[in-house]
């Protein structure tokens, strides 16, 4: 009995490694899309739903950026004019706030803690972000449950945290991201032949050695250490699943192609906003290809930390300092330099969304199958305000949400947007958030 597990493992190892690797010819002709391009003709399975988050630092500035009209017929404020070409595929949520419930406002953090996890705490606790709750549903079964990237050079610039294992560090180098996704382990879903990699089989099989240590270790530990060990094994399971996915014949994906290899960049820590958005564009291209190739269904991008140290070329003062120190131009009515940063980021956001919209899947686009959720750290950054958060979404999530709307909800919990998006993405949840940030109903007007 004691050797049952190892016998199984041995049999698996022998069977798969000793010369019997499987080659599977893919019936590509059977796998074309149906006429509307929404489903695989062969089995009627729908194209996957995808999700992305996009975080920019320091809000939209100090002047009034809330559109005057609600619903479909609204005019974009000047701060967001860059988004005009994608307005029809966009929703703009305004007015939502995070309630502190007596907790202190750890500036540039607490608001995001509430917005992204539904829970405000005095500690740095940050577990279960919206994207992670969504990836729980749509991210399983792909090679990477989610992919995180950050444009300014710090792997800590990430707002993606699993409920159990916490914050997911971000990839900061496009070249490294390319290697991770499209390097030697990449299997082209449209390749005619599929051969499971014996080395991956071995790697997966050998992980059993670690699992065998679990029980003995658990028996020695206190509750808090056990929780951490549980988290470790959750991550290990994910690693196993990743290997498992690589051993399976991938679903053919018409829109998949391998992107060009980005050049390795020597300098990872950046100081200019223009450099950060250049890197952003490289990441956007790689993430779009990763989604189109089924490597992941969830991607998270962060421009920089909220207290952004990014600057404008030739200016010694960083964006964050400007939000507090720059005078509001009495004639123009806004902080001119801060506006330059906002414009730079809204331009980048349009390019991000357009990159996904440019990939055709049948008669629709990759963007149509997804929701991009764009968020920031403060409503009014100059005041460290946790009121009136601007939130943007793009794409209809494969027909699950309506688009083209401005939805003003002054004073409402911002968590309601989070709940709405979760429900649209298929998360089985009827309420979300803690304390005053708890909401029990979604914004029905956007749900299709």
């Amino acid at each position, binding site marked *: 009995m004691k050797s049952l597990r190892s016998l199984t493992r041995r049999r698996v190892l022998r069977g798969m490694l000793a010369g019997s690797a499987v080659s599977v010819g893919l019936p590509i002709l059977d796998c074309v899309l149906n006429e509307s391009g929404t489903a695989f003709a062969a089995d009627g399975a729908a194209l996957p739903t995808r999700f992305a988050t996009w975080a920019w630092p320091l809000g939209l500035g100090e002047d009034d950026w809330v559109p005057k009209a609600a619903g479909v017929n609204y005019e974009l404020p000047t701060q967001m004019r860059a988004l005009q070409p994608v307005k029809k595929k966009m929703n703009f949520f305004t007015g939502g706030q995070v309630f502190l419930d007596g907790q202190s406002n750890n500036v540039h953090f607490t608001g995001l803690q509430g917005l992204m996890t539904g829970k405000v705490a005095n500690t740095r606790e940050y577990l279960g972000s919206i994207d992670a709750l969504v990836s729980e549903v749509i991210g399983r079964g792909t090679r990477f449950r989610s992919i*995180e990237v950050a444009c300014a050079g710090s792997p800590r610039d990430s707002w993606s945290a699993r409920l159990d*294992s916490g914050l997911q*560090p971000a990839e900061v180098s496009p070249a490294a991201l390319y290697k991770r996704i499209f390097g030697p382990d990449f299997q082209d879903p449209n390749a005619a032949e599929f051969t499971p990699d014996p080395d991956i089989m071995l790697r997966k099989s050998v992980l059993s050695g670690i699992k065998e240590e679990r029980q003995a270790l658990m028996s020695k530990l206190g509750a808090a250490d056990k929780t*951490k060990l549980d988290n*470790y094994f959750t991550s290990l399971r994910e690693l196993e699943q990743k290997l498992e996915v690589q051993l399976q014949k991938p679903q053919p994906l018409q829109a998949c192609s391998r992107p060009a290899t980005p050049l390795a960049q020597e300098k990872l820590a950046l100081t200019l906003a223009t450099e950060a958005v250049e890197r952003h564009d490289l990441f956007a291209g790689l993430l779009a290809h990763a989604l189109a190739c089924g490597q992941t269904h969830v991607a998270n991008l962060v421009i920089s930390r909220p207290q952004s140290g990014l600057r404008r070329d030739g200016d010694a003062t960083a964006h964050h300092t400007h939000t507090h120190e720059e005078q509001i131009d009495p004639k123009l009515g806004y902080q001119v330099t801060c506006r330059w940063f906002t414009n730079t980021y809204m331009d980048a956001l349009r390019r991000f969304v357009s990159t996904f919209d440019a990939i055709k899947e049948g008669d629709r686009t990759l963007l149509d199958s997804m929701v991009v959720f764009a968020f920031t750290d403060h409503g009014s950054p100059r005041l460290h305000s946790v009121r009136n958060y601007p939130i943007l979404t793009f794409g209809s999530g494969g027909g699950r949400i309506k688009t083209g709307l401005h939805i003003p909800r002054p004073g409402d919990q911002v968590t309601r947007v989070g709940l709405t998006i979760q429900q649209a993405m298929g998360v089985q949840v009827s309420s979300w958030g803690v304390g005053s940030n708890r909401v029990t109903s979604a914004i029905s007007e956007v749900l299709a």
Partner: protein
Amino acid sequence: MKKTLDYGSGRGPGGRPGSRLVTGLVASVAQLALIAPVLAAAPAAGEVPMSWRLGPSQYRQSIAEIFGPSIVISGRFDPEYREAGLLTIGARTASISASGLERYGELARNIAEQVIDEQHRNTLFSCKPQSEDTSDDACAREFLGRAGRLLYRRALTQHELDAKVRLAGEVAGIRQDFYGGIAAVLSDMLLSPNFLYVYKTVERDPDDPQKVRLDGYSKASILSFFLWNAPPDDALLKAAESGELHTRRGLKRQVDRMLASPSLETGVRAFFSDMLGFSEFETLAKDPAFFPRFTPKVISQAQEQTLRTIVDVLLTSEGDYRDLVTIPRTYLTRSLAAVYGIPIADTTDNGQPEHWIAHTYPKDDPRAGILSHVSFVALHSPSGRSSPTDRGKALRELLLCQEVPSPPADVDFAVVQDTTSTVHRTVRERLLAHSTDATCAGCHKIMDPIGLALENFDAAGGYRTTENGAPIDTSGELNGTKFDGPVGLTKALHDDPALTSCAAMKAYAYASGRMPSRTDPALKELQSEFEDSDYNFVELLRQIALSEALYAVPPSAAPRPDVVTAAR
């Protein structure tokens, strides 16, 4: 009590050449048998995490010590998180993320491949397989038992070792490669929580069966990561196995040995890297348009400059801890000297590694002590300009253990505006405007006057006397002591009792993984002993390493004694 330590200037950190595996450490089967029952101990209930995630430097040091410094570790680690001012405390609650584990997996495979390659296998294996084309259980057992004991910082149980030998055999048989089997299992061990986490586990206290105590292995790991930033060596593991670490005399013997080892320098460097926030260097950059001399080379040399100065004052000279902030002596390279604007003679050829040259600032020079280093003034400045607030906050928090609260929400900063003002040209003038707002003034009053005294140093560490054409006024105040300029600040700091009480607090927190309360009796005693030793830092380390409090099992983490197996 003074010791004679030889910290020759030519010696790098570590000092122990080769690897522990090479030096031949064998855990006997008898030892394995003794350990088995302890590992089967019943569950321990508690709320406080006692274990910690191996930090990147501890990971690197472990690999270098166990397999030798020629193993190349290329790849990134899960980022570290600072809690209560220390990464070491953040490591107590750190999880390993899914993408982090993916990276650890790559590192592990890469290291394992190097260990078995032609270059290393002959020195790291003390046996040769009968045939390289198939399994050899005896040789696998010998290697995996030795490597496992060093990697897991405890001897493997018989059961664990059997399982690993079996797995190595299976893979070797299939791949027809003995070393391939070893590499597969080694890579597993490097990915195991037993390696990636340092566990503190308990056993029943033989002196009082109603109580539990940390077992010997846990004590060995605490000591060794505290003093060496490295896993326990063979002698320390043996002291754990023999029970020596549970006796006062035995513990003292090991602590004396560890403090006399050249590895102490590695430990002291690691402590100060953590305390001074050097991990932030990873993402530090300066605008080349303003600071063309601030290159990536300078960033790495800046940390080394400060660490060398610290080692010089605290270990080589066994000096007074307070001198760190006033010492006119330091070490410079050509690149660093260029940033500081100091002429030094260096005859190194272009393209060759730059020399470190001892340099003493003349009397009355504005630069003195580690606060004038790039590693402080540039690290705590934004990329384009200096920030007295950032520097003041860093000094309070890092060196004086005084926490500065976050600014409140929805406060209007309208008073702090207009960097282009012709009236408020210097930072001081702008900040003075700031302090007229009562909401902001409370906190800025404790940060800005310290930071303003360092305004002679620009955002990259260069010296200046004017800003936007206006002369810089560097007068300031620290806890009631008024001074003028950076040297005045460092003198006031030297005499501030918070400087030394904070050092003791941070060192104790670093060793134990938790921030003690200011009224903690054990901390009070350490602080008073530190004072008695004329602020000899090595003595502080000794007192912490010998203190019972370091090995105490926190009440909330204490399991019921009846469920814990008796001590060996």
